[in-house]
């Protein structure tokens, strides 16, 4: 169990515990006490972390085993020898009903969906917020609240009409059809509106006197000022877009447009069809591949993310 030094610093590793025992044995040091609240806090945190991480680890470990082994014994706790093979198969082996899609294609599709969704949403959201905050529009407030109510109507709620519209526009099985309906929601507009409203009025006036028109003000001043906000939005939206499942399933029947999240299911589908042993190893590998880009983005941009949501340098 965790030891607590007299200064309250918790030590977890065995070596530290050893040194602490040694120092505690020295006659001058007072006896250290265990703070049970701290132990309890950490136990809860560690349990939570394990709950989140162990399944991911098991997928990672299982992705290095043979299909048969997993089929017989379930998910594995230790690494096997078939990792390279599985990842190779997941990325480069063509599969699916038409044999027209491999992991790389799906990775690219997911990237297009993630980036297209995030960028589209930020561009539309920023421009809408710009119009609402900075222009004397007659129904600006009304328009804002109309946009705001769409927060109550995520795509899942309006999925049938959305499908109908996209179908009739002949956008099914296109990237446009995949991305466009997802962009139409209020989150980005809402966040950018709040942000723009916090920018001092004098900045707009100074820019007017400096001869910056609406477009110049937007590009030269508003966009650079919003960059931390944009980064934060980008992370949220990218991960959200990347993890989309229902809409891509509905709107893409062409396998060359499948995303990773969908591809995993496609592999497992073989089992349900009863045709052959499902490619468990490959599916696990694909799951790991699918998890990696969002995780990387969050790791690399987390500073921006925190900054964008908590502070602003005005």
């Amino acid at each position: 169990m965790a030891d607590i030094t007299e200064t309250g610093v918790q030590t977890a590793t065995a070596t530290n515990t050893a040194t602490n025992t040694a120092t505690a044995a020295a006659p001058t040091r007072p006896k250290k006490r265990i703070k049970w609240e701290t132990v309890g806090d950490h136990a809860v945190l560690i349990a939570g972390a394990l709950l989140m991480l162990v399944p991911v680890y098991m997928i990672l470990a299982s992705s290095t085993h043979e299909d048969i082994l997993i089929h017989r014994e379930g998910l594995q706790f230790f690494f096997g020898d078939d990792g390279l093979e599985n990842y190779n198969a997941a990325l480069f082996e063509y599969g699916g009903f038409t044999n027209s899609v491999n992991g790389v294609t799906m990775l690219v599709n997911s990237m297009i969906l993630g980036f297209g969704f995030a960028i589209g949403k930020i561009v539309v959201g920023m421009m809408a917020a710009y119009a609402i905050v900075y222009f004397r529009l007659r129904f600006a407030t009304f328009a804002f609240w109309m946009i705001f109510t769409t927060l109550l109507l995520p795509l899942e709620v309006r999925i049938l009409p959305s499908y109908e519209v996209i179908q009739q526009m002949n956008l099914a099985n296109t990237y446009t059809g995949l991305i466009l309906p997802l962009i139409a929601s209020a989150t980005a507009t809402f966040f950018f509106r709040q942000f723009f409203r916090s920018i001092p009025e004098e900045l707009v006036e100074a820019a007017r006197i400096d001869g910056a028109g609406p477009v110049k003000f937007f590009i030269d001043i508003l966009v650079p000022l919003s960059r931390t906000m944009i980064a934060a939005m980008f992370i949220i939206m990218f991960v959200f877009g990347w993890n989309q499942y229902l809409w891509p399933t509905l709107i893409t029947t062409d396998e060359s447009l499948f995303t990773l999240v969908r591809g995993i299911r496609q592999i497992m589908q073989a089992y349900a069809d009863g045709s052959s042993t499902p490619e468990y190893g490959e599916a696990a590998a694909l799951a790991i591949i699918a998890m990696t880009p969002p995780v990387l983005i969050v790791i690399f941009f987390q500073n921006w993310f925190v900054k964008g949501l908590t502070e602003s340098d005005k």
Partner: protein
Amino acid sequence: MAQVTLNAVRKIYPNGVEALEPCSFTINDGELAVLVGPSGCGKSTLLRMVAGLEEISEGDLSIGDRIVNDVDPADRNIAMVFQNYALYPHMSVAQNMGYGLKNRGMSKAEIRAKVREASDMLNLTEFLDRRPSQLSGGQRQRVAMGRAIVREPDLFLFDEPLSNLDAKLRNQMRIEIRALQRRLATTAMYVTHDQIEAMTMADRIIVLNDGKIEQIGTPNEIYEHPASTFVASFMGAPPMNLLQGIAGGGKVTLGSDQDVLHTGTEGNDGPVQAGIRPEDVWPDPQGDLAFDVDIIEELGALRLLHGRVAGQDFSVAVPKDKEATTGLMQLSVKPGAVHLFDADTGRRL
């Protein structure tokens, strides 16, 4: 260089509130005019109308020979310094100063030369690559000045530029701004609520109250001949004493027959308000006025005695080397230092 002329310029907000009554005046070429008044008096509205940030409801505004009512702020050839500086936080000092020039389509080399010239003038050269957030308040103020200077405008507009600075820095910047404006000989309008800033900086002061002009004049005129009780009490610290009394026969009787001010009344017999500056009276055992001192304020160079004359509030400023005690004393009034105002309207008689 240009003179600014306002001809019956008026501001009415869409909700019907009249922020500014029609006002007309001319600011001469190279002059620094200070608009002063309490908050909400319309001084900032007036300045913003000159800048083009606020629409002019009625009347004509001309800068130079051109009526600019419908001219875009960028095309009025003005420069404005804001209270919170309004520097672009993501641009360096040099970019901040050059942004307006860049938008005018000036070449990079030319911009750099002008920015360099202005930054030399303002001792900003070593900060050109810094961001505003890395500068002190006074330095930011200078950058805002620099941004105004590089444009070589016809008119400077200052909107309470010193109110975010501490007292010491404010005094220093006050002198710097004044010197700079003199050197560049550019017409300037300066808004402040601080009467000391107004007195020290202005060529001419425009005193505003409640959306209308109370008085226009040089600092000396404003101080020596205030046009109304408002101007009299607003300009000058400590403010002028105002006493209710009855004028008649070359004197003003305040309360009883003992409290009398001898002054020309010139046919304004009847109820009046008499104004006396605290420095225009002094303790004198042979004096006419009985003064009951309650409180003594030490100001260093001066001592302020607060108390009552004929039952009305009164203050006297005495030099630091004069003894002062609370209690009753007699006061003498400097001849000709009594200002008479109408008892109802407060206008000067």
